[in-house]
């Protein structure tokens, strides 16, 4: 069985007075690491949306211009 080094959860937090240093270092690092993963996911998502909008708009324009040429042909 794996045993925790500290006697209690409270001891794990305070770490004999070093808790503030250890935990602040851990939290700052984790925030930065998570941001490293979230940033590209968000920018990719925004880009996908933007490109999809462009493509649909472009196709809408193409199909409407096709219709107008058809109409001209009919006239």
């Amino acid at each position: 069985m794996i045993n925790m080094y500290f006697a209690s959860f409270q001891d794990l937090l305070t770490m004999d007075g070093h808790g503030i240093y250890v935990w602040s270092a851990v939290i700052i690092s984790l925030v930065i690491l998570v941001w490293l993963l979230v940033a590209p996911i968000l920018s990719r998502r925004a880009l996908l949306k933007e490109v999809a909008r462009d493509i649909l708009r472009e196709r809408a324009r193409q199909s409407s211009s096709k219709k107008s040429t058809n109409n001209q042909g009919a006239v």
Partner: protein
Amino acid sequence: MSWQWFHRLGSPRWFYQTSTRWLPLLALIAAAVLISGLVWGLAIAPADAKQGNSFRIIYIHVPASFLALAGYYIMAIAGAVGLIWKMKLSYMVMKSAAPIGAALTFIALVTGAIWGKPTWGTYWVWDARITSMLILLFLYLGVMALQYAYHSIDAARKAGAILALVGTVNIPIIYKSVDWWYTLHQPATIKFTSAPSMHIDMFLPLLVMIVGFYLFYAVALILHTRSEILRRERKTAWVRELIVPKADTSNAKEAA
């Protein structure tokens, strides 16, 4: 000898499609290794005889520093491959490696400063190891800034690659700084040439964290590169097909 694999490796499309398949598994393994290493190091490993519990910062500080240095080599090699073979994907990897390396260097500096307070009595000294790490941060930021400093993408890439390559001179200086100068920073705990100067119960979780950081680095680099690939290749047929499949558009047209 067939060079097909080499050219395929240089294809952003191939990279994107392959990474789509492998990324979830890799991310899962990275998270599992990091979490178990962190719990082991913070809660289970014994305290240091001299430093007490503050030494536990090592489980973040050392792996982050490792990857800050290894990441610089990855960035510089990617830049060199880009310069030599004009490989687009390679430049994308270089550009993606810069912010990740900068963030890891920042983590190494901040956790080092926090660790310094209870151990040395100060957050910061202009010590050889710490100063050379600060220069590493500026090199990463320089490569990032150069990507936006030119109108031409090609010029930006080349300038970034050259700065990355010139900056590699700093890496051995960082490694050796604790031996060359009289520094406050302790010498390396882990060396390839000798046994670690650390008890096995403290060393094993550190090893797990280093492996975890390598895996994390791979995941982060792939994510950043994928995002960069889409940005650069947004006009190409395969990206357009990926985003709005042909089948969808026929439906859309019918609906319209």
